[in-house]
Structure formats: structure tokens, C-alpha cells
């Protein structure tokens, strides 16, 4: 079943996330990070940073930090077991730190298919803001297999 292209332009339910040093510490441990700016609040403070620095891909984790991270695909009737992550990209404007509260405001910007619908692609673009200031653009392409 092809996804209805009427969903292009659909707004993703917005959400907000408060970034914690606790989660960043675990992320650093999982990814083999050794630079203390990414996990040690004291080291970050001594370097003049307001908190522990969120690494480049962490915006994706925060975007997923909601009860139903793929709510938009469920709305389209997609089977999440047939979902693959196709592409991910970020455009950076400002660094973010533990203690920041970020607002995620997303929209479905494209839906297309390849191989006569065997693979369908859902493109989501999210503006991430901190107190109204744009800090990152998050671009995701999810693939739904037939």
C-alpha cells in the first residue's frame, strides 16, 4: 500500500526536551567518547561551558525522546516493523548543553517511492529551537519496505 501523499506538509506533534548531563554521560560511555567536555560537568564548567556539550548526533536522540517517536508514520498507517533508517543529517547553528530545554517542531516534507513502491521514503524536517533561537535543523529519511 502506497502512503498517501496528502501527508506531505503534515506537522509532527511538537515536543520539548530538557537535556540532562546524566543521559549525555551514558551516551559518551556508549560511543567511546573520551573528551570530558561531553560527560564531565566539572570539566565543562572549567572550560567555560554552561553545561556538558551535546555531541553532533544527539539532536536525533532528543527528537526521538517522546512517547511515540514515530507517531507520524503511525498516522500514515505504516508498519513500524518494516521501517529502516535511510538517511540522517544535521545543520548546526548553535551548540547545546545539559540544562537546555529544546523545542522540536517537525514537518513531513516529502514522500516518494522507488522500485514500484517496494521502498517508500518519508522525509521529515525538524527545527530545533532554544527559547525561540534556531539551534539545529534535523533531516531524517525513513524507509518503509513493502
Amino acid at each position, binding site marked *: 500500500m502506497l502512503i498517501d501523499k496528502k501527508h506531505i506538509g503534515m506537522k509532527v506533534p511538537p515536543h520539548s526536551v530538557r537535556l540532562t548531563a546524566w543521559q549525555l554521560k551514558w551516551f559518551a560511555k*556508549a560511543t567511546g567518547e573520551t573528551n570530558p567536555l561531553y560527560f564531565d560537568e566539572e570539566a565543562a564548567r572549567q572550560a567555560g561551558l554552561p553545561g556538558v556539550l551535546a*555531541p553532533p548526533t544527539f539532536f536525533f536522540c532528543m527528537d526521538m525522546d517522546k512517547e511515540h517517536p514515530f507517531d507520524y508514520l503511525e498516522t500514515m498507517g505504516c508498519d513500524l516493523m518494516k521501517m529502516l533508517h535511510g538517511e540522517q543529517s544535521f545543520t548546526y547553528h548553535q551548540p547545546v548543553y545539559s540544562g537546555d530545554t529544546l523545542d522540536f517542531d517537525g514537518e513531513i516534507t516529502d514522500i516518494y517511492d522507488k522500485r514500484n513502491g517496494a521502498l517508500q521514503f518519508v522525509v521529515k524536517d525538524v527545527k530545533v529551537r532554544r527559547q525561540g533561537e534556531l539551534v539545529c535543523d534535523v533531516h531524517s529519511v525513513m524507509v518503509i519496505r513493502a
Partner: protein
Amino acid sequence: MTKPNFDALNVGDMLPSFTTEPVSRLTLALYATGSGDHHPLHLDQDFVRANGMPDVFAHGMLGMAYLGRLLTQWVPQSAIRSFGVRFTAITQIGERLVCTGRIVEKLEQGGEQCVRLELTCANEQGEAKHKGDAVVALA
């Protein structure tokens, strides 16, 4: 951290690469905690087998996080303007990931001297798991 010197860099130059420890079930459990992604495909072998697959596999974003480290070990994170990947293959338990980057273009973007990097995260046999690019400002 001091940034690499724009004028001293050439197209074709490689970033300092690294190879990760083998991706283990513990790695995936830690990544689930750090990322908040607790999808059973990455954690629950019973669930995975019941769905016709042999074993759990790594979160795609784990490999992208490794490529992020490749960048932030080379330049301060504030120098990264954009960073993207395509996910081309699944990473299995036990695989080490080799993260490499190469300068493919020197350019001016938004009034800044930048380099465009081609990034690859591959297993030790050379199978690319993620292919990506990034633009980094150096002046």
C-alpha cells in the same frame, strides 16, 4: 583544541582515522540508555528471532555517533556546519567499525573558509555501513 590550518590542507588529505572496539551486546545496551532508543531489534534476541532474523544488530545511529567522534577529534564541534549520512548496511554484533574521513573540496560557504569531507564507517572487510559527508569551517 586548535583547528587544522585551512591553507595547509589539500583535497585528498585524510583525517586521523580510528577503529572501534567490537560492537557488543553491552555496547547496544549502553547506547540504548544514552540514546533513549530501546527498540527490541537492538536488545531482545527472543523478539528478533520471533521476527525471523538471526540476531540483534546495532543501532544505525551508533555508527553515525562514531563518525561524529571522528569529526570532533579533528576540530572543535563548533566548527561543524553540517553532517549527514546514508545508512547502507546493518552492523552485526562483533564487528569493529573503521571510521575514516577525507577532504574532497575546499570551499567558501556563508563567508567562511570550509572543507567538505567524505566520511565512511565500514567493517574491517571494507563493507561500508554508513557513507556520509560534513562541512567544517576552518577560519
